[in-house]
């Protein structure tokens, strides 16, 4: 039983962590938390199932197309819901615009795809084992994304530009960095990461439109606990969240798990609104 708790918990935790990284990538480019983060995860599963099961494409093609779909939704988020409100003085507007877009995508999926849970294909043609691919694929995806982001941010020019924008938007623009293009690229990247989360975790989560709000919430918990913009913190917090949830699920039942996660989340947020690893900001008058 312990084995099963650990493998399920870590796998689910890695999916949460990937959604948290999706939030972070969008946040560092725009200072905006987007409600579409969980929607992207949901889309990864739905698109994977659509291309591979319904349309019969090979797994690799399905993966590429699902990621492309995620990137597209990421870019649309930037154009439709983020760019128009970035200049607005009213800081709450992005919450509403990204929420609206997330709902549009989610409802469209519900109507055009299905309101029921749909099966997701087995990605690799190997026999079912104790430590099955449905567990290790999300972990692999998470590791690949973390390693990829480290490489990108530390060793490429584009990555340095991303960091510059995240650190100081004004200074970066003054240096002549194409802020808007970089922001769109960040959102495309975030879209792919979100879609990958849903794709790699497809067998656990299935292709289901209602995964969107669930992932939006549980994906944000690691962001809040790990500190916004902090990807490593997000992975650790995500895995802990997954383990805690699964353990509580097995030991005392589902409601307690949800209530406990929610309670811990609220208490931590109230005690440290900047996250456990974040720094506080003086406010300006």
């Amino acid at each position, binding site marked *: 039983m312990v084995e099963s708790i650990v493998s399920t918990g870590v796998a689910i935790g890695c999916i949460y962590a990937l959604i948290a990284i999706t939030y972070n990538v969008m946040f560092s480019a725009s200072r905006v*938390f987007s409600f579409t983060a969980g929607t992207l995860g949901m889309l990864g599963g739905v698109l994977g199932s659509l291309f591979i099961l319904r349309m019969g494409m090979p797994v690799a093609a399905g993966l590429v197309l699902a990621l492309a779909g995620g990137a597209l939704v990421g870019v649309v988020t930037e154009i*439709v*819901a983020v760019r*128009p*409100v970035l200049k607005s003085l*009213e*800081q*709450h*507007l992005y*919450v*509403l*615009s990204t*929420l*609206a*877009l997330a*709902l*549009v995508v989610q*409802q*469209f999926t519900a*109507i055009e795809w299905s309101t029921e849970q749909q099966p997701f294909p087995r990605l690799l043609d190997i026999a079912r084992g104790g430590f099955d691919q449905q567990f290790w694929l999300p972990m692999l995806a998470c590791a690949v994304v973390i390693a990829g982001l480290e490489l990108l941010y530390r060793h490429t020019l584009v990555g340095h530009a991303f960091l510059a924008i995240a650190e100081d938007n004004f200074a970066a623009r003054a240096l002549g960095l194409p802020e808007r293009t970089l922001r769109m690229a960040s959102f495309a990247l975030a879209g792919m990461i979100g879609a990958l989360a849903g794709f790699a975790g497809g067998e656990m989560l299935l292709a289901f439109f209602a995964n969107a*709000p*669930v992932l*939006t*919430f549980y994906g*944000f918990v690691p962001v*809040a606990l790990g500190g916004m913009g902090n990807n490593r913190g997000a992975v650790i917090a995500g895995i802990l969240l997954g383990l805690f949830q699964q353990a509580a699920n097995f030991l005392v*039942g*589902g*409601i307690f798990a*949800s*209530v406990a996660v*929610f309670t811990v*989340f*609220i208490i931590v*947020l*109230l005690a440290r*609104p900047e996250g456990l690893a974040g720094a506080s900001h*003086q406010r300006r*008058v």
Partner: protein
Amino acid sequence: MDMQATPLRPSRAKVQGASSLYGAALPFLVLFVVGVSFPLYGGGYWGVIATRACIYWVLVSGLNLVVGFGGQIAIGWVALLTLGAYTTSVLVAGTATPELPPYLALAIAAPVGAVFGLIVGLPALRLRTFYFAITTLGFATIVTQVALAWQSVTGGGVGVAGPVFPAPFDSQWGFYYFCFGLAAICTWMTANIAASRFGRALTAIRDAEVAAEASGIAKPALLGMVFLFSGAVAAVAGGLFATLQSYITPDAFTLDLSILFFIAILIGGRGSILGPLLGTILLTVLPEFAAPLVAWSTFLYAVLLLVIVLAMPGGIAEMLDFRNRRPLESDRAIVPRPELLEPLLGSPPDAGALTLDEVALSFGGVIAIDGLDLEIGPGQVHGLIGPNGSGKTTTLNVISGYYAPQRGAVRLNGAAMPVLARHRRAHLRIARTFQTPRIVGSASVLQNVMIGGTIDGEATFVESLLSLPRHRRDEAKLHDTAMLALAAVGLEQLASVRADRLQHSELRFTEIARALMLRPAYLLLDEPAAGLSAEEIERLGALILAIARAGTGVLVVEHHPDLIFDICHRVTVLNLGKILAAGTPAEIRAHREVVNAYLGA
């Protein structure tokens, strides 16, 4: 009534106010008549729709105070509908307790909802927009999961029967009138709040939080009351909803419903009662006109929300606001009437001197102020000048409690003022203005000024909710005082205009009028002359002097040396957080270092 102010009250604005009040009540009257006579022309199914619209409005009216007025993004409010529905149904069904009569169950649901409204809402005191939105979303998910899993009480996925109210409310139209009556009462109560100091304070928290604090508005207490009220009416709506559904399962309370409530408010327009009411009716009725669209309704709501946010953030309320589309006079001038300050300010009690002892504060490695001594007496104008970054505004922020000094103390009449207690400053009669005017743009100039007198109201939230005499007395008095303050700074002809239509200089004088509402012992002005014309600066100077003559001590942070030297009794020059010079204007003008460093030869 404030008899002292009556003869000075400009009569034209009063007449305008009365006619607009009548005009504002008219749409509600029409809706009321239509609602009462609805059974005459609405057949069976439309009766259900109308009942549903009433029930939704009971919830939305309360949520409107949270979202539309307070600006708190509570998107998961369906949780309280769920809670109310289950509380009522379970108590009536008797699965956990002895069976209770429906009215009693509904009456119990209200306080339960109030408590949970407070629990869901309280994080708003600490968390910013997105965080708060997501906690309400999480709460909505949790409540549904609990309802699903707690089978012995809620019936789990099978559900539980909704309560049936006894005659005369058991028939379709009987129940409709029950819900309609509650909806009408909720409209009346929330309209009372909207027109009270509590409603104005909520909009101030939404649009100009620092100004709200400087006016003495305590955010926790205010939002707490609003969450209690909003939770209670939402739970009552839940009980009614359960009756209308006749059988409830967790599936009935989807997030879509929450989104409907939320969007109804935004479509209606923030800070309005009529707008969200029309929005609720619209969103309830709309899907019924186009049956094939029912499946798409949430999709359409979401598209609508996107369009509203991007294209018309003011919503229906702004569309209907014809009055504020009339062009304003273009060559209007601000002509203060300092002679009105005496009746306005009365004679402030001697608060003693305001002193800073050795105050020091640094941000990280940057020293903002370094061992600053300052003393201002009642009736004195004290100028604070110095180059950018010399610590002028920081000094002001320390006095008004936004920053805690790391060393030293700020004292009033010898007693140290509480550190970081921003909204307590107003109670010590210390008022301030801001470098960038902090104004509620969608409220009228008069309402903005009335915000300044919030702490002088005596009626409690409940008294205002029910429009009891003390509430009406408060409002009449605040209205008259605010008109007087506006006349004193020279803006009374703009009283009923939306504040965001004003010119920059007019906003500065509006802020001064708002600060005067406190009858301040000390008034802190942060660059009041910035952006003003030469003529306006002259009038500002005369106004400040008159304020000081009435007994108020004034601290002016300014860049205009002429203004400072004209009006100040004493001037302190700061450089790099330290006092470079202090003395009378004549001494400062002759001070060699000051001339070299700052004034220029």
